């Protein structure tokens, strides 16, 4: 074995350490993104589907800067043609670190748009709420007008002429839906990534502080709160005066909608992230453990479970009496509530995180592969697909 002296000097050894650490640094970036991609579900109104596509990542050393900014896209659901696209501009950035500099902050959108009358609302990871004209794509107002909030990850709900959303600063905000004026704010003890639910005049929203809050939607006053064993990232379902919510503690809870008292608790193997769907006295909820659980809405007893083999992140939808569920791996299953049998409807072979939406027997699915699919809920036939990036 011939080993030269130079190769054994401290300097060379140091060089080796540097190279290995550089490799280590680069290796550390694999599979771990440094900037948000987003990608929302769709919202349908008057034959138009509104969607915010995921940002395309450029990748790179130590950073992965998006090459496109966020946008709201309007699509004609009849043929999948693009009607218009509204760019959602961020604010000027001071630049990134090593090898990363950005002139604008990309606007990743996770929460599905909300359509009320003439306006479409979207909340961005850049901490801004945008109200955009549904016909023209022209920006009506933005909140806050100056500066920005912490990232907005969850979606919004619109009711009582107001717009409600949670923010990563732990606040629940209510805005005037018409003008974007601030109405009230409720502070929680942790980040909020969940989408709220409204029932009557009560707003329900979960926080990373482990609590589910019931808030008076008019005044912003707390009605009750319920503490779970983990952070809450899922959206509550209100069904038959009961609030159903899953938590990071692997439990799915049923609470009395009036006072927040616990009715029952069901424990799975991993987190709950999606919103549940209820039909005919049964609650169906997807879990990160790859199962969809069918639970008795009254007692919490497990009726059956559907082993789909891949985590369920996206919200399921109810089409007539059939529940459509998408797994992370892009398999679309249909659960017939009549006999609780599940069958594969379609396989997109692309990652699906975004909530599903449905209209007139057609399911619309946006994949992280940046494609929008229209699939017949009955036959599983692919009606059209549209690349959106």
């Amino acid at each position, binding site marked *: 074995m011939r080993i030269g*002296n130079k190769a054994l000097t401290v300097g060379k*050894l140091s060089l080796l350490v540097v190279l290995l650490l550089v490799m280590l640094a680069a290796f*550390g970036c694999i599979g771990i993104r440094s900037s*948000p991609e987003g990608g929302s579900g769709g919202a349908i109104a008057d034959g138009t589907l509104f969607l915010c596509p995921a940002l395309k990542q450029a990748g790179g050393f130590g950073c992965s800067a998006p090459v496109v900014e966020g946008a709201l896209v309007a699509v004609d659901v009849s043929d999948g043609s693009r009607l218009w696209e509204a760019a959602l501009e961020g604010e000027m950035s001071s630049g990134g670190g*090593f090898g990363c500099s950005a002139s604008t902050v990309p606007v990743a959108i996770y929460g599905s748009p909300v359509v009320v009358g003439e306006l479409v609302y979207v909340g961005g990871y850049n901490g801004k709420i945008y109200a955009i004209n549904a016909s023209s794509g022209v920006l009506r107002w933005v909140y806050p007008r100056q500066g920005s909030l912490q990232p907005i990850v969850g979606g919004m709900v619109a009711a009582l002429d107001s717009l409600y959303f949670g923010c990563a600063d732990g606040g629940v905000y209510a805005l005037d839906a018409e003008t974007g004026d601030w109405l009230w704010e409720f502070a929680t003890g942790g980040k909020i990534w969940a989408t709220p639910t409204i029932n009557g005049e009560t707003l329900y929203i979960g926080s990373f502080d*482990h609590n589910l809050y019931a808030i008076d939607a008019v005044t912003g006053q707390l009605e009750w709160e319920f503490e779970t064993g983990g952070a809450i990232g899922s959206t509550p379902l209100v069904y038959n005066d009961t609030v159903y919510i899953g938590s990071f503690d692997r439990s799915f809870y049923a609470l009395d909608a009036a006072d927040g008292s616990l009715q029952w608790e069901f424990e799975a193997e991993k987190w709950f992230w999606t919103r549940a769907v209820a039909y005919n006295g049964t609650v169906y909820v997807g879990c990160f453990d790859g199962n969809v659980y069918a639970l008795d809405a009254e007692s919490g007893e497990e009726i059956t479970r559907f082993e789909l083999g891949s985590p369920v*992140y996206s919200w399921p939808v109810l089409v007539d009496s059939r529940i459509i569920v998408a797994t992370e791996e892009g398999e679309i299953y249909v659960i017939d509530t009549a006999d609780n049998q599940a069958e594969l409807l379609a396989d997109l072979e692309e990652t699906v995180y975004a909530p599903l939406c449905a209209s007139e027997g057609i399911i619309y699915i946006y994949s992280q592969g940046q494609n929008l699919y229209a699939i017949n809920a009955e036959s599983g036939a692919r009606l059209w697909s549209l690349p959106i990036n």
Partner: protein
Amino acid sequence: MNFWDIIAIQPMTNILIVLTDFLFNNFGLAIILLTLVVNGALLPLTLKQTRASKAMQDLQPKMTELQKKYAKDKQKLAQEQMRLYKESGINPAGCLLPLLIQMPIWIALFQSIMRVLAVIPENLVGLSPYLYSWPSVYSALPLNNHFLWLNLASGDMFLALLVGGTTWVQQKMVMAPTVDPAQKTQSSLMLWMMPILFAFLTLSFPSGLALYWITSNLFRIGAQYFIGGWGGLVKTAPKKPTGRDKKYKERIAEVEKPAQETDIVVPGSAQEEGLSDEESGGKRPDRGGGYPKSIRAVKRQPRRGGSHRRKRG
């Protein structure tokens, strides 16, 4: 998950989360503690590597001497260098092997910190498959990213400077003094290149990683101080060597001891054939001239077992 994830990333990720839960949901303290624990577990390897590096540094003057002597015969130079290593009891791989063993563990720690930070939704979702079914793991997530004034998920200039500073100190401590201008330039380049590179990396990555780097650097500075004092950092007498250091130094001293001393054994067949040192070198088939006296002479070691000890007088 692949094999690497299962054996390295997953355990470290869960330990990091449990530590955070145990340390009052303080992720910064958990990073520091786990880094210390991992470095502590690797301490024997670190010490071995540091000692081997130091021993090689101590041998450097002789190496330079050999380089000058065999400047035109690379093959011979390599042979003589290997012979010197062998006689000095130094394994050249002793520097490299512990480092290579430690690397996967550092990489696992590095990746686990990145993964557990889970600042954006995609990363939090991606963390789920790595979690064990331990209750504290599920109740602790997502972790609080704030530590002191820091947001552990974003870069921090002060920490970048600290990373650069501690890297420089560590480098300076192990840097061997040299008179060779080429080596001096190389050493100087490395002394400044590494801290600057690390500082830039720190700015680009979440400051949770900077905490890991700073803690690791301080730990290694401590280990190096334990082995050889402040080294090249200050021009003072080194700290009193440990038993193992003494052993290395004795070996090196032995090869450097002049041949005229008593109780000398010359390697090879020179003494057995009744030849002088110069004759021995001259009669070598390759006519390389043999070792300089100071290198060639090896003092016979008294054996520790005692059974073969030769009585004097």
